């Protein structure tokens, strides 16, 4: 079915869960009023990004009243949102939730925690262990959190698992100024989302935050990308925005007829070769 998507390009406050929850709920209300079917938030929307030692303080269990409240709201609109999750065995994850019709449809824990350059996630957070697609009223969906998408295998696995829509929640810091019109991080992401959509004949919904934390800017530019790789909607750079766009079912159908790469993709060959590589690495 056609689906109206809202990308909530918000500016979370660092470490302020109650304030951010209010921002998220206001955006959900706005989505409902604009008759959107799905609202997507950035990575760590409920907490902010450079948390460091704040991680345990801002973490919520999936059963917490705050998260239950969001689940309740999903009776009116589907919701994808990022937060810090604490598990019953006290591991802390950079997680994304997908709620629909009052139910939790999927929990994704960020697998690839960047720990290089300006990033330090693996120091504070535990690593997720799986990529799984799941069914929604808009078809099969895969969730990715920021750095996950820079690993080809992540999007590939989700697409092979049947996802026709990839939702990426992001907190991408802006950096790399040159003579170009955009920062290096912006152009890199735009190439990545378009190429991923094109390779996997998938729609890509990318939601990035804005604002500054300790001098680091988050550049926004959230976008909806059609399976052809064409960007159908894009948010403002550096400013809060609320991007509402229609995901056209026909565009997905037509692209999948026009470029049936996913039909022809051989899971058997890929699986065999990856297993061979794993065996060879072990025996080295």
């Amino acid at each position, binding site marked *: 079915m056609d689906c109206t998507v809202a990308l909530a390009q918000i500016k979370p406050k*660092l470490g302020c869960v109650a304030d951010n929850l209010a921002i998220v709920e206001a955006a959900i209300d706005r989505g409902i009023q604009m008759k959107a079917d799905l609202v997507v938030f950035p990575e760590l929307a409920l907490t902010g990004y450079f*948390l*460091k030692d704040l991680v345990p303080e801002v973490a919520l269990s999936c059963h917490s009243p705050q998260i239950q409240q969001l689940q309740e709201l999903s009776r009116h609109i589907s919701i994808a949102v990022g937060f810090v999750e604490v598990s019953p065995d006290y591991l802390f994850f950079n997680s994304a939730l997908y709620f629909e019709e009052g139910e939790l449809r999927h929990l994704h824990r960020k697998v690839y925690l960047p720990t290089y350059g300006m990033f330090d996630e693996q120091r504070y957070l535990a690593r997720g262990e799986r990529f799984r697609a799941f069914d929604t009223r808009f078809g099969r969906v895969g969730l990715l959190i920021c750095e996950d998408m820079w690993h080809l295998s992540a999007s590939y696995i989700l697409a092979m698992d049947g996802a026709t829509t990839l939702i990426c929640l992001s907190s991408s810091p802006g950096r790399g100024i*040159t003579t*170009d*019109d955009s920062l290096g991080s912006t152009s890199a992401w735009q190439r990545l989302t378009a190429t991923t959509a094109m390779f996997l004949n998938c729609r890509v919904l990318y939601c990035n935050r804005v604002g500054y*934390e*300790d001098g680091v800017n988050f550049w926004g530019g959230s976008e909806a990308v059609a399976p052809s790789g064409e960007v159908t909607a894009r948010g403002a750079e*550096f400013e809060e925005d609320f991007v509402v766009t229609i995901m056209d079912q026909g565009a997905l159908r037509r692209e999948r007829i026009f470029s049936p790469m996913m039909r022809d993709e051989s899971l058997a060959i890929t699986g065999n070769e990856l297993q061979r590589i794993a065996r060879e690495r072990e025996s080295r």
Partner: protein
Amino acid sequence: MTGLAVNTKLLRKVLAGFIREEVGKVGLHKAVLGLSGGIDSALVAYLAAEALGPDNVHVCIMPYRTSSPSSEAHARLVVDALGIGCDVIEITSMVDAYFQLFPEADNMRRGNKMARERMTILYDQSAAMNALVLGTSNKTELLLGYGTLHGDMASALNPIGDIYKSQVWQLAEEMDVPRPIIEKKPSADLWAGQTDEQELGFTYREVDELLYHMVDLRMNRSELVLQGFAPEFIDLVYAKVQNSHFKRRLPVIAKVSNRTIDRDFRYSRDWGK
């Protein structure tokens, strides 16, 4: 200058946004800075006026008796062009009172004292006006350690600390900083005729190229030599960066507990904001 050339409109947007948001986060809407008559502080004043509005930017011109009169004249060009608030606060009496006790003090001690005198004035004005102190040290100076620790290097927010002097010039052009300020030779103005480039022994354009390849592109020594940089120049600049690193860090704390500030007690400064 290929790698150092920047889209100045984009840079302007990011830096003005930085000032606006980071000042606002603290619950304030004003900034104060020292205006020397040089390009760095002039540029920061322009960025601050754009970010906060001219009514919310206050500058202090703080001459010493040996300061060149042209410095104050150039600072006034900025004040007049932007319509920002300004005080002239002479530091001669405070600095001279101190050095009467130490008449033998050399230029370095005197220059550092002047820089720190100005810092105490800015922080006092910050409290008086509910305004955050903006820093005006650029990336070149910070990397070379060409500044006074707890003096001109002290600030609450520094919008230009990640851009090289060559990029300061580009952005100053974009923001229409008055020509005489862009065109004059950079100087700490501690004594008559002093210029940065003479004192450093190389030009900003030369060292910015080297620092960009060394720091930003992470080229090693042999790669830098292949790029055409003289080995002695590379070693000199590398040593300057290394030897001034203490100026870019907080004081070292002796660790005895399980959670030591900045080592295993780690929070962003924007914690809760």
